[in-house]
């Protein structure tokens, strides 16, 4: 609402006349006010610098903590199977030996154990003079028979089958052997 238009002309004239009076400014401490204004302005700029400093410090601290807590290089264990060409001499020697005998002998050699008395020998500056072959346990025997057949149980160099007899390889061989036995 602009009431000025609704004032009468006489009041408008009086209003203009009254407006010529200048209010007394009084005893304001202008110097103090200007000093405060300058101080406030300076404080604002100082505050901006302080805020920037605080922000940069926070970033630096965060980075330092992240660097300290960073986990080391991760170790990944991976099994890589590399095919090895069999040695020709070893392969020919193994081929000559029957598989059951070969495995059984290896098994016996590996299954050796030292008696408790022999284990004390090094303490007295002695050298154990023998190693007793260990007797296989039942599960070992079972696994061996299942894997290589009953001939595994025989001593090294012997076989359940007679060495003279040839094992039939085919059905025809079986029939021929049976025919010979009947006749």
């Amino acid at each position: 609402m602009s009431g000025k238009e609704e004032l009468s002309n006489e009041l408008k004239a009086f209003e203009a006349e009254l407006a010529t009076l200048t209010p007394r400014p009084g005893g304001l401490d202008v110097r103090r006010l200007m000093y405060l204004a300058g101080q406030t302005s300076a404080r604002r700029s100082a505050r901006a610098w302080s805020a920037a400093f605080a922000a940069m410090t926070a970033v630096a601290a965060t980075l330092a903590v992240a660097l300290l807590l960073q986990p080391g290089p991760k170790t990944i264990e991976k099994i890589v199977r590399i095919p090895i060409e069999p040695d020709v001499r070893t392969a020919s020697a193994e081929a000559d030996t029957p598989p059951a005998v070969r495995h059984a002998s290896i098994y016996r050699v590996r299954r050796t154990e030292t008696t408790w008395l022999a284990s004390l020998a090094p303490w007295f500056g002695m050298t154990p003079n023998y190693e007793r072959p260990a007797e296989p346990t039942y599960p070992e025997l079972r696994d061996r028979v299942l894997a290589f057949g009953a001939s595994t149980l025989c001593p090294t160099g012997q076989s359940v089958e007679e060495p003279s007899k040839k094992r039939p390889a085919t059905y025809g061989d079986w029939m021929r052997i049976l025919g010979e036995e009947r006749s």
Partner: protein
Amino acid sequence: MSPRGLEPERLESLLARHAGPLMLYARGWSETPEDVVQEALVQLLRQPRTPENVVGWLYRTVRNRAISHARSRGRRRRHETAASSLGEPWFVPTNGQRLDAQAATEALGQLPEEEREVVVARLWGGLSFAEIARLTETSSSTAWRRYESGLVALRERLGVSCPEKKNSRTN
């Protein structure tokens, strides 16, 4: 709110334009208007953000502080008593003016509080009626009515002859 604070240059122009009217405005309630206005200006300077309407903000702050001062000190008296006790005029006396500064001071001091604050805020403060309505928590029409009746009362007390008034009444 402005993001930046009040610059010293702006404060200087504010003081040049509004220090006197603010003092006059505060005199309606307080016997120490200098303190009231000074505190209001200091409060303005300490604001983290400058108000959009600085003048309106200043008048509202001066009003609240002046009323608070008067209540806390128990010195709230009728303004005519305060005006007579001050002794010095509220306006700068000048020789060439038709209106006498002392007479205007007394006439203004004798106005009712509601009319006086509207007259001062409008005539010397330059506030719009909408701003005065917000300041005094009334409507714009009420503010205008108070302004008009205040002017009429001042004119009568100052004895200003108004030939147009007679004409208008006869018409």
